[in-house]
């Protein structure tokens, strides 16, 4: 509800008055509420505005931008990160083009469903928010490197998008298809090794580390969650007991405690020389923890598929594995997309706990450390740094949420 009716302009003054009367001042109580909350809102807006544009000391962000984004990543190897960003952009564009070409080939999407203009518009509508934040980061940066990287990345993404259909259109044999899909899957893994051979995991930091922990855990926890959900419904008693026990055990422990355990108690079981690095341990804990929650969400999805679906799948002669893979699981997963994405967003934000529990130098640790720097000490600038961290987290989380709604809509085509 808008609290400022005069935004409608003088030309519509009478209309605005009628509107305000009807919506804001219908009864004395309405009028009091409107005035009280209007005043509070205006005060909040004024305070926010003055913090962002007047009193905020944003030079602390400008000076420490690099530390916030990538932590203490050694200077000499930053180029590898730039190459990785460009590589991932090209890869993403290629994948988008490839998938669309495959969909057109299989007849699921018609080539002339939408015009090119409409599709570009759609892409802009999807990406404008993260793009604005990236632009803000570029403006804050003091060197030309990020600008060049992002510029090349955009070109690479467009090139990849143009090349993707060339690989997706032709019909390949099963061998060719497997090679191509394997190749596509190998690109991010290859880029990871390209970076990690130069700079070990434990030297990564900043928002890069949060993103990386989250992406790894998300990719790994999903299949594990599906397996646990199926295991809990298995007819084999051993599988069922193990799955149920695992889920209940992990869900009963706070994530923070599990992270602390992985950090300190692991030494009781594994000799130090064999113990994985701290960041690897964090990924393992996040994966194992979230998988237990995903399993319960997916189990709910499995239960939401009507029994008639399984009976129909049986009646046409599908084997038990195919009943699950082609009929039950696709419907189950689609039915619980909102809950799944909620869990993954939660996982993404919880990566900050790895900083507190394990001493990893992720974004939150950076934001709480830099106000104590020489030159900023004692000036109470933590508000600025925390606000900046909040903006980054919110941007990614909100983008995930929007993409999930889009996915839900697309998968729900023609379903009652």
């Amino acid at each position, binding site marked *: 509800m808008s609290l400022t009716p005069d935004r409608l302009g003088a030309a519509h003054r009478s209309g605005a008055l009628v509107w305000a009367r009807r919506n804001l001042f219908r009864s004395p109580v309405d009028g009091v509420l409107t005035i009280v909350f209007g005043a509070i809102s205006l005060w909040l807006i004024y305070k926010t505005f003055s913090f962002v544009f007047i009193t905020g000391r944003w030079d602390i962000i400008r000076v420490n931008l690099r530390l916030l984004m990538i932590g203490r990543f050694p200077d000499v190897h930053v180029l590898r990160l730039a190459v990785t960003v460009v590589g991932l952009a090209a890869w993403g564009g290629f994948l988008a083009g490839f998938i669309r070409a495959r969909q057109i080939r299989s007849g699921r999407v018609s080539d002339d469903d939408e015009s090119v203009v409409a599709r570009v518009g759609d892409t802009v509508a999807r990406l404008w928010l993260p793009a604005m934040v990236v632009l803000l980061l570029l403006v804050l940066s003091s060197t030309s490197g990020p600008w060049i990287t992002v510029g090349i990345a955009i070109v690479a993404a467009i090139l990849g998008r143009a090349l993707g259909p060339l690989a997706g259109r032709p019909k390949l044999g099963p061998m060719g298809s497997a090679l191509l899909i394997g190749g596509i899957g190998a690109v991010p893994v290859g880029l990871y090794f390209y970076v990690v051979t130069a700079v070990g995991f434990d030297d990564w930091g900043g928002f890069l580390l949060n993103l990386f922990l989250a992406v790894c855990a998300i990719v790994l926890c999903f299949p594990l969650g599906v397996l646990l959900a199926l295991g809990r419904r298995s007819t084999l008693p051993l599988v069922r007991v193990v799955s149920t026990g695992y889920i209940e055990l992990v869900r009963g422990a706070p994530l923070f405690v599990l992270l602390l355990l992985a950090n300190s108690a692991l030494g009781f079981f594994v000799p130090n020389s064999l113990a994985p690095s701290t960041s690897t341990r964090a990924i393992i804990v996040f994966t194992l923890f979230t998988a237990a929650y995903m399993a319960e969400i997916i189990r709910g999805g499995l239960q939401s598929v009507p029994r*008639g679906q399984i*009976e*129909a799948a049986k*009646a046409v002669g*599908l*084997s038990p594995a195919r009943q699950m893979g082609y009929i039950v699981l696709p419907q189950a997963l689609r039915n619980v997309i909102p809950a799944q994405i909620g869990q993954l967003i939660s996982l993404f934000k919880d990566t900050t706990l790895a900083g507190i529990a394990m001493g990893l130098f992720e974004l939150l640790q950076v934001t709480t450390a830099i106000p104590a720097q020489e030159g900023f000490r004692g000036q109470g600038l933590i508000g600025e740094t925390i606000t900046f961290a909040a903006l980054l987290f919110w941007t990614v989380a909100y983008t995930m949420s929007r993409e999930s709604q889009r996915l839900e809509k697309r998968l729900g085509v023609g379903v009652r």
Partner: protein
Amino acid sequence: MTDQHDDTHDDTAVFADATAMRGTGTAMIELEGVDKFFGDFRALGDINLKVASQEVVVVIGPSGSGKSTMIRCINRLEEHDAGRIVVDGTELSNDIRNIQEIRRETGMVFQSFNLFPHLSVLDNITLAPRKVRKLPKRVAEELGMAMLEMVKIPEQAGKYPGQLSGGQQQRVAIARSLAMKPKVMLFDEPTSALDPEMINEVLDTMKELAASGMTMIVVTHEMGFAREVADRVVFMADGQIVEVGTPEHFFENPSEDRTKLFLSQIL
């Protein structure tokens, strides 16, 4: 139990009728002494029924009489507790391979359609031929389109089940079963969930199927269909087969009191 069947001189009335039918005389489905319990409740008691190849058998009876349970035992959606069920010479056992073999040869149409909502109409039909019969995609899709033409809705191939009317959905479900080229079709109250104006389009499809020589067992409350299409009518009550006969015998001159009572209630 084993040496009771397969003999040429069937002595029960149930079996004797089969020889008089349009069917070829060779048994497609045999149920012998089939019992089924849900807990302590006896859902089926000593069911004996032989259905000849190309025969159309309509099963009627009050709700809760075990009609659906009986045909669901034939493709093992329910497990029977005693007796024998033989489909096209293969006896139903607990072996999953054997069960799937029988399900491949047995199509089933459900009261609530049970189409796969996440697949297009054509994919609903081609899934099993591709994955179970291992047909190449193109062959399966040609087959699927032929089936859709048979049920007279080829133009709906690209749509999703949720976009179709109930009658259209049920015809897709019939096409989905037929695409597996089954030897038997089981219908479990196929028109009970339909709006009245859609019942006939489904019944017409079933009539054409019967005329083409398909072996069919149909559980229904459509007495007109039973009278017109059935070779034999089976009347069930309280989990038992009470009476079996031709439609003429059944509707004009039933012999059992239980049947007369039921008919007086519905006609």
